[in-house]
């Protein structure tokens, strides 16, 4: 186990190494991304403030991520409730199909949506990115919400009903507070996925790029590379922050339901 532990620690370092390079070069004054480091600067972050096109992309991304997260979570709640509480004909097939985007290469989702949208005579835009992101975020939301609903003892709802509440007030007073951590966790995860997603946005974004699509175009210009590192630093820090908060809520949900934590979202 000792040697396994050293291996595991090395592995973690390998996993995190690229991410740790981001701030290193984001605050390095050299325009070339290479060792040795020269001196500390915040210049590249200031550069970001001047890229007005990027601000538009950021706003666009936020709008898309927020909408997709809400839609995916709502769709996720329906499916997770159906899958954990009820049995219905073709359950395995239907749920399997809904979860399919989890393994399907994103390029397939992207081109197939693109072809249908163009064929039907619509133009792509923020709406089509939202449609695609909702599709790929829903399975993640379902995975999280399913465990939230599964850990909810059905007799809690029956008890509330037995004590005089209506189905609606039972949902409000018992179900919702108990699965709320799961819902928040699903929202945050979906938001993060949509915010970071590149391929579907690349195919379906139309005239207004999302932040990753804009970032991709920045990567072609060597002059902008330090700014890419700066923006990357911000995005990665934001993602990690959101994920830590999501994990916090997920664990709180598990604790509330009196469960022993087994770890991990999936």
């Amino acid at each position, binding site marked *: 186990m000792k040697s396994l532990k050293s291996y595991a620690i090395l592995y973690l370092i390998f996993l995190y190494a690229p991410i740790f390079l981001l701030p290193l070069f984001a605050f390095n004054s050299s325009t070339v991304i290479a060792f040795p480091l020269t001196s500390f600067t915040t210049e590249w972050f200031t550069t970001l403030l001047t890229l007005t096109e990027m601000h538009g992309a950021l706003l666009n991304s936020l709008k898309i991520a927020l909408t997709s997260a809400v839609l995916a979570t709502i769709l996720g709640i329906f499916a997770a409730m159906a899958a954990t509480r009820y*049995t219905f004909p073709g359950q395995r097939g239907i749920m399997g199909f809904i979860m399919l985007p989890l393994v*399907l290469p994103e390029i397939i989702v992207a081109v197939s949506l693109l072809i249908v949208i163009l064929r039907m005579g619509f133009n792509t835009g923020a709406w089509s990115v939202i449609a695609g992101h909702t599709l790929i975020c829903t399975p993640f939301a379902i995975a999280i919400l399913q465990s939230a609903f599964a850990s909810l003892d059905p007799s809690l709802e029956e008890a509330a009903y037995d004590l005089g509440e209506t189905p609606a007030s039972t949902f409000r007073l018992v179900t919702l507070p108990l699965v709320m951590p799961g819902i928040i966790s699903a929202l945050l995860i979906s938001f993060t996925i949509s915010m970071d997603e590149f391929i579907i946005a690349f195919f379906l974004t139309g005239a207004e790029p999302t932040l990753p699509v804009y970032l991709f175009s920045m990567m072609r210009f060597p002059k902008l590379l330090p700014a890419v590192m700066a923006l990357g630093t911000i995005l990665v820090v934001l993602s990690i922050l959101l994920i830590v908060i999501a994990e916090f809520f997920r664990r709180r949900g598990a604790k509330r339901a009196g469960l022993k934590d087994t770890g991990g979202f999936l």
Partner: protein
Amino acid sequence: MTFGDKMRRFFRSEQGVGMMLVSPTALYALLLLAVPLVAIFVISFWTQTGVRDFDTTFTLANYKEALTDPLYRQLMLRSLMVSGLVTLITVVLAFPIAYFVSFGVKPEHKSLWIFLITIPFWTSYLIRVFLWKVILGYNGVLNSGLLAVGAIDEPLSFILYNVNAVIITLAHAYAPFAILPIFVALEKIDRSLLEASRDLGESRTMTFLRVTLPLAAPGVVAAVLIVFIPTIGDYVTPRLVGGPGGLMIANMIQTQFLRLNNAPLGATLAVLAMLIVAVIAIVFMLLGNKAAGGNTGGRRK
């Protein structure tokens, strides 16, 4: 009972409520996933005539071209080879980690380890791939670092803009995917089974081989599929770090759709890629099932 009565009864039954609840999500997946997938399939038998115009007469010309043109064949084979290698590397490297977290970590620290392993997965894929380009470049972080400490005299050139770079980058990106399913399978193993094996006279190594490994097989099968299927269609990594010799089938699909404006051929390549993946996945699942002594299906507990 009239038909109306039957319907009313159904929608008040458990099955009916379940169907009603799942229907918005199922409908969404139907409209935005099933319909487009069918559309891709249909279009692969058409011919592009204008920017948005198609000749909709049925033809197998696209399939003929896709299967005979050496360029497409080479791209397809390379994609298969890359994702096969990436799968092998990630799963082999991941198994000891999953084993360590499941058997070597105190229960209260397990979720922290798993969380630490999965965090990088939630950060932007594009940025992570881009970082590998920066790391592996001719004047990149690795070369400049090695030069600075005097480990090499001139920059290594075999590590960027080729298949090696694609494999390294993908193996890094998909690492957590391989760890999680194996970890879950290992966690499900009843610890008393291992004690029973020791009690019956087996060594630690033989216990691992005769008990742990067969019971972990479903997790390994899941890990293989969950890495293999998405990597074969990866676009970003070959595009950023692959160079001309490292491109894969997804890059060609994108080129056909967005650059060459030949959607039917792009659709054909997509359909072929999905078919190949599906066949390999099914064959592998059947083999895995057999290897695991058929215990993949009927899960304990």
